[in-house]
């Protein structure tokens, strides 16, 4: 068994940056005050919180009072959809989304459907892209919101968000994007993009878990989501996670500062690993965009014929590599990933999918080791697969 352990599941979560951990420690120790308290201990906590808000706003090209801290990306998604639905119910009861959204979006939409809302789930093409013309065609006079994810968590597809937001606005419709996978990984400026609401989550860019944020453009009225005290300008009650917010701001600042140098390096590493897999392991295919510039830099998703994903993940783990899969067997349900099926993959191909999500901590040696681990895992599983026949040469 290997002593080496390569973490290549950065789409699931990331290791907190040392800077983020160090930034939060004072707020867990001597600076533990409640930001709502009037005395100095409280004021210091308040200051830390507001500096964090300003930092997050700067990184996104937003104003500080447009940033609301939440406990997760899921909460930000839930709030954005429920809030707009609630606010706009008089205007109409129709929402436009896509088939490849995260469950934080899909399950919230399903709940709204139970409450009488109508939702159009747009198809995507074989690489996961939404057709802007189809998007526009789906908008109706009673549509009040469009929600389309910035970057897909399984196959890394980067949607043309700026274009979609502009189309929505032409029709007077609010636009939300779940940018949980994108923030800290690709350049994002809310003013330039023109989105009205945007969700993010700290643990996807090297902050700790349990902190996220919702950007809400100033002109958008969103009802309060959690009721109680007057925190977050009366919109989201609950004594603030100051340490988490401070850590998230530190991690985002670092990610944005390093983006220009790190992201091309990671994308190149991903591209060469992809090439290595596709040329050397027979009967493998790439899932998601082939054009590396239209894909999250660290995301690689491949299907390996005749083997099943959970078995790959377990064997890779024994070799010291952490990756994930869109196979049903990993989710406890019998259906493979809704994203891979929406891309048009056959269920059997989706069952054999592996997602490798690289990050700034991964090196060329890591990529090489991942390749060799996947190659030997594939050989081993194919040798016991009733579907596999050795190619005759």
């Amino acid at each position, binding site marked *: 068994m290997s002593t080496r352990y390569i973490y290549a599941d950065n789409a699931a979560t990331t290791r907190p940056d040392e800077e983020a951990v160090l930034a939060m420690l004072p707020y867990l120790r001597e600076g533990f005050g409640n930001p709502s308290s009037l005395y100095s201990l409280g004021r210091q906590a308040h200051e830390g919180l507001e500096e964090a808000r300003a930092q997050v706003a700067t990184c996104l090209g937003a104003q500080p009072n447009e940033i609301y801290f939440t406990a997760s990306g899921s909460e930000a998604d839930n709030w954005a959809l429920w809030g707009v639905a609630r606010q706009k119910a008089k205007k109409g009861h129709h929402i436009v989304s896509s088939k490849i959204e995260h469950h934080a979006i899909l399950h919230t939409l399903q709940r709204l459907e139970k409450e009488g809302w109508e939702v159009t789930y747009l198809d995507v093409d074989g690489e996961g892209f939404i057709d802007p013309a189809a998007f526009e065609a789906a908008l109706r006079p009673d549509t009040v919101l469009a929600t389309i994810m910035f970057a897909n968590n399984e196959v890394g597809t980067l949607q043309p968000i700026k274009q979609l937001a502009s189309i929505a606005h032409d029709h007077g419709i609010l636009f939300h994007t779940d940018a949980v996978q994108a923030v800290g990984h690709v350049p994002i400026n809310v003013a330039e993009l023109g989105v009205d609401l945007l969700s993010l989550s700290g643990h996807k860019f090297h902050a700790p878990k349990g902190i996220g944020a919702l950007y809400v453009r100033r002109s958008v009225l969103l009802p309060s989501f959690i009721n109680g005290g007057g925190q977050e300008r009366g919109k989201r009650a609950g004594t603030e996670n100051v340490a988490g917010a401070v850590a998230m701001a530190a991690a985002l600042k670092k990610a944005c500062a390093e983006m220009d140098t790190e992201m091309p390096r990671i994308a190149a590493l991903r591209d060469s690993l992809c090439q290595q897999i596709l040329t050397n392991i027979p009967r493998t295919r790439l899932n998601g965009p082939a054009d590396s510039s239209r894909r999250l830099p660290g995301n690689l998703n491949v299907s390996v014929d*005749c*083997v*099943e*994903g*959970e*078995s790959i993940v*377990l*064997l890779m783990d*024994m070799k010291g590599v952490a990756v994930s899969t869109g*196979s*049903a*067997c*990993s989710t*406890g*349900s*019998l259906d*493979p990933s809704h994203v891979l099926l929406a891309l048009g993959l*056959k*269920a*059997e191909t989706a*069952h054999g999918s592996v997602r490798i999500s690289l990050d700034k901590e991964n090196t060329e040696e890591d990529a090489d080791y991942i390749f060799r681990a996947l190659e030997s895992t594939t050989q081993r599983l194919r*040798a*016991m*697969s*009733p*579907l596999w026949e050795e190619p005759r040469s």
Partner: protein
Amino acid sequence: MDYSEKVMDHFANPRNVGALENANGVGEVGNAKCGDIMKIYLDIRDGVIVDVKFKTFGCGAAVATSSMATEMIKGKRVEEALELTNKAVVDALDGLPPAKVHCSVLAEEAVKAAVADYYIRRGETPPEAAMPKGCGGHCATCDGH
């Protein structure tokens, strides 16, 4: 995913993997669409399973249940093999997560399908116990387990 040590052992070091050239009973259940296929090869002499091998496409539990099922019927008489239940396989593996119990059903069905094939090849009618009773490899019926 909560796999017992036994499941992980049978997954990491599966017993009886492979095919038998001289098998006189072969059973295959499941389908690729659902994510598991099990194929069991039996070499039966004088009513005794003298050798058994399997090939499985599927998750950790699918491999482990195939491995355990083949261990449990090796050296047994055909009638005894037909008494193998999915529950016995689960127990022998110190349990399976609820979502994976269908894999053990598949293992039981694979053994029965292989034994039924043995009877059919001999021109005999397979005993009632060899007839598939459960899913026969259809996803929908597994949903309830």
